[in-house]
C-alpha cells in the first residue's frame, strides 16, 4: 500500500494532531451507534439463530432442540441448487446492469442543461415509491388480460398478441430483473451523483489542459475519484438485491413449484405456506452466512473504506 510510504515531512505533521486513539476515546463518537445496534438488532438476530436449531410446530410451539438437523434438511433439499442458481443470476444481472446504467445516468445528470432539476426529480420517483407498489403496477400492467403495458406492446407491434409475462419461469424472472434494475437505479445514481460532486473541478480542468479526451478523462480521472461512492453503492446494492423479497414474490408468485425462486422467496414460501419457522430460520441463517461471506470478500478485495 502506497499510503503507508509517507514522506517523513507528512509523518511529522500527522504526529502533531493525534490520529491514533484508544477505544475508550472513540466511544463518545461511536457509542450511540453501538447502543442502537445492540439494542435493536442483536436480539432478533440471535433469536433467528436459536430458532434454526429448534423443532417448532406449525402452530408455533417451540418443541425441542434438534442441533443442526434443520440445516442438513434444507441443504439436502433437491430444489436448492436451482434456487441458488436463480439467486446468483438475479443478483449478478441486476447489480451489474444497475451500476452500468446508473454510471451513465449520473454522468448525464451532472451536466448542465435546461430542465435538469425536473429530470433529477423524475429519476427519484421509483425510489420514493414503495417497491411493492412499483412491482404491483408492473404486474398489473403486464397482465395478459387487463394489462396496459401488454396492450401497448401489442399496439406498437412488438407483440402479436398479449403475452403472459408472469406465467412462465424465464419471462417472469426477466420481468422481475427489469423491475429490480428499475427500482435500484435511482439510489445508485444518486450515490454516484453525490460522488461526482466530490470530483474537484480543477482536476477536470487540468485533464482538459493536458489534452485528455472525454473517454480518457472519464476512465482515468473521474472513475478513480468515484471509487469510494461506487464501492459503497455496489455493496449496498448487492445486499439489498440479494435480500429483496417483494419484486420476485409478486412477479414470480403465480408460478407453481420452486423453479423461479431465489433464497428469499423460498424462505417466504417455507414460512407462509409450510408454516415452518424452524426451517425458515435455518434458511435465513444460511442466507445471512452467504451474504456475510460475499460482503467480507468484497470488503477485503475492494476496500471500500479509504484507509484514514
Amino acid at each position, binding site marked *: 500500500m502506497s499510503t503507508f510510504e509517507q514522506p517523513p515531512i507528512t509523518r511529522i505533521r500527522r504526529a*502533531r494532531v*493525534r490520529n*491514533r*486513539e*484508544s477505544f475508550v*476515546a472513540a466511544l463518545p*463518537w*461511536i457509542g450511540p*451507534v*453501538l447502543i*442502537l*445496534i445492540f439494542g*435493536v*438488532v442483536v436480539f432478533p*438476530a440471535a433469536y433467528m439463530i436459536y430458532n434454526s436449531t429448534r423443532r417448532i410446530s406449525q402452530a408455533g410451539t417451540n418443541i425441542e432442540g434438534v442441533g443442526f438437523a434443520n440445516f442438513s434438511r434444507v441443504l439436502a433439499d433437491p430444489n436448492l441448487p436451482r434456487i441458488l442458481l436463480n439467486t446468483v443470476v438475479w443478483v449478478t444481472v441486476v447489480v451489474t446492469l444497475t451500476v452500468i446504467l446508473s454510471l451513465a*445516468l449520473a454522468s*448525464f445528470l451532472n451536466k448542465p*442543461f*435546461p*430542465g435538469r*432539476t*425536473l*429530470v433529477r426529480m423524475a*429519476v*427519484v*420517483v*421509483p*425510489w420514493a415509491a*414503495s*417497491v*411493492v*407498489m412499483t412491482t404491483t*403496477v*408492473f404486474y*398489473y*400492467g403486464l397482465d395478459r*388480460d*387487463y*394489462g*396496459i403495458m401488454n*396492450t401497448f406492446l401489442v399496439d406498437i407491434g412488438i407483440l402479436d398478441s398479449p403475452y403472459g409475462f408472469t406465467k412462465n419461469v424465464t419471462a417472469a424472472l426477466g420481468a422481475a430483473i427489469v423491475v429490480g434494475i428499475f427500482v435500484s437505479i435511482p*439510489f445508485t445514481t*444518486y450515490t454516484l451523483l453525490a460522488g461526482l460532486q*466530490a*470530483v*474537484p*473541478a*480543477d482536476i477536470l480542468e487540468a485533464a482538459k489542459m493536458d489534452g485528455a479526451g472525454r473517454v480518457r478523462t472519464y476512465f482515468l480521472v473521474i472513475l478513480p475519484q468515484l471509487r*469510494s*461512492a461506487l464501492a*459503497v453503492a455496489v*455493496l*449496498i446494492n448487492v445486499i439489498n438485491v440479494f435480500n429483496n423479497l417483494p419484486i420476485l414474490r409478486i412477479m414470480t408468485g403465480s408460478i407453481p413449484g420452486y423453479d423461479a425462486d431465489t433464497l428469499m422467496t423460498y424462505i417466504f414460501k417455507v414460512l407462509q405456506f409450510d408454516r415452518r419457522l424452524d426451517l425458515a430460520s435455518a434458511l*435465513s441463517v444460511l*442466507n*445471512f452466512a452467504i451474504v*456475510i461471506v460475499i460482503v*467480507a470478500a468484497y470488503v477485503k478485495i475492494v476496500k471500500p*473504506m*479509504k484507509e484514514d
Partner: protein
Amino acid sequence: MAIAAPPEVPASAPSTSRARKYGADGVTRKWMVTRVVVGILIIVVFLVPYLIMLVGSLKTRSEILAVPPRYLPQDGLQVGNYLTMWSTPETPLPYNFISTVIIAVFATLLVLLVATPAAYYTARFSFPGKWAFLFLVIVTQMLQPAVLTAGLFRQMLVLDLNDTWLAMILINAAFNLSFALWIMHSFFAGIPKEVDEAAQLDGASRLSVLFRINLPLVWPGIVTAIIFTFVASWNEFAASLVIMSTAENQPLSVALTKFIGQYATSWQYVFGLSIVAIVPVIILFALIEKRLIGGLTAGSVK
C-alpha cells in the same frame, strides 16, 4: 484537442453563443438540444409506471379491470377517489399518514444524529476495533427486518414498545444507519486532513471542527443519506406489519394492504394511495436537492 475555435459556418454562430449562455461547460446548441431530448426520454421512462398508477387512480374499479384495457378513463375522471379514500371503512387513512410522517422523520433524524459523529470519527482517526466496528455496522444492513420479525416482536413485547411509534423509529433507524454511516464516512475521508489539522491547531474543538468545517463540505453525502433513510423508513412494511397492531398507528405501507382483498381489490384506492404516498418524498427531495450540487465543488473552486 479542441481549443475553442470560432465556428466557421456563419449560420451556427448565433446558436453557439446562445448555447454558451446555458451551458457552464460551453457546448454547442445542438448538444444542448440533444441533452434536453435525452432528459425528456428519461423522464418518460421513469414516470411510466406512476402514470399508469395515476391514470388508474382516476378510473372506476370496473374500468381498471376491463378487458381489453383502455389507456384513459372513459367514464370521466374519478377525482373523487382522492377524497373518498380518506374516510373508507378499511383503514383510518389520515392517522396512517401522520404515523408514517412521524416515524420517517424521527428515524431519519435519529440516524443523522447517531451516524454523523461515528462516520466522521472513523474517517479521521484510527482506534483498536475500528474495522470490527465498521463491519458490525454493515452486518446490520445484511439483516433485513423481513427475516427478523419474529424476534423483533418478542423484543418489543419485553420492552413494552409493541404498537408504538418509538418501536418503529428505533427499528428503522437501526436497520438503516449503516448506509448513512458508510456513505458519510466515504465523504469525510475525501476531505483533506489538512483542513482539520489547521483548524485544530487554531484551537478549535473536535466537535466544532466537525460541525463548522467538515459538515458543509459533505452535504452531497448527507443528502444522499437523508433520502435513503427517509425513503426506507417511509416504505418499511415487514416490521410495521408485525409491530403495529392498532389500525391508527399503522403506516401507509400497511394501510395500503387493507384495500387488497382476497376477492375484491379496490385498485382505484391502492393506486391513489400510492400516488399520495410518493408526494411527500418528492417534496422532501425538492427541498434538499440543491444541497446535492454545491457542496465540495462550490467550496473548492475559485
